[in-house]
């Protein structure tokens, strides 16, 4: 196989690895951010209710 053609396959494979990991980290970052907001909001709500009780 010519070097240029092989290089395209190699670039595609490593590019795919990079793309999948970047996408995974982006999605994971969003998941963590959403959970943090929800936990903080519920924690504050609970703090407000407890003194009332």
């Amino acid at each position, binding site marked *: 196989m010519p070097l240029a053609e092989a290089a395209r396959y190699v670039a595609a494979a490593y590019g795919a690895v990079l793309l999948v990991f970047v996408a995974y980290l982006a999605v994971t970052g969003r998941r*963590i951010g959403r959970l943090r907001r929800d936990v903080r909001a519920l924690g*504050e709500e609970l703090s407000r209710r407890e003194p009332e009780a």
Partner: protein
Amino acid sequence: MVESAATVAGGRVSDRTALAPATTTAILALAGVLLAAALAVGFWVAPTDASTLGFSQKIFYFHAPIAETALLAYGVAFVAAVLYLRRGDARYDRLGVAAVRLGLLFSLLVMVTGVIWGRAAWGVWWAWEPRLTTFLIACLLYSGYFVLRGAVEDESRRATYAALFAVIAFVDVPITFFATRFLPEGLHPVVLGPSGSGMDARDLLAFLAGLAGMTLLFVGLLRLELGIEALREELRELKYRLEG
């Protein structure tokens, strides 16, 4: 990121879910260094393959370690499932979920890099040979793990069914791993066999650096996923308390 899991819960600061983010970051950084080293040795030090694979063989330095790491992840899920079934501790259920999720992530990468390499090396995108077929079966089985979890409402039953499923699904993992050894008519070579690797020492070095890097990446991401699962648990607890 996981640091944020140490959060306010009912007026008290809970550090239950904090998983030493500095350690996770250090592990991920070390993984990055090892993976960069694997590529540097693989591309600049190791010789270009003299067989028909030629330059396309360079895909190997990530493809094989990713495959081994995917199987490792399923192994962790198996151990977590057995421990959950024996002890009933929800932590093992969370470990199983995190391990299967990462196993599927690495499996996706194996399939993608595999079909690209298959096209370059064999001239076809896909071949129904033992290693590819058993790996595809593993991917489908472990995808079913999440379908099962989504179908069961009760937490305890969901964890038990998922653990049983993970134990059964694991049967495919050793078959996948040993497929190239027991079924030599397949297209995949044996990377590390009883008679050694058959690789050039520089190739082997790049492979081992890639393997160590991917394994550490898995460990780092597993810690991150466990942090997420712990946050989810904390959220469930808060909701429960708010609902009285």
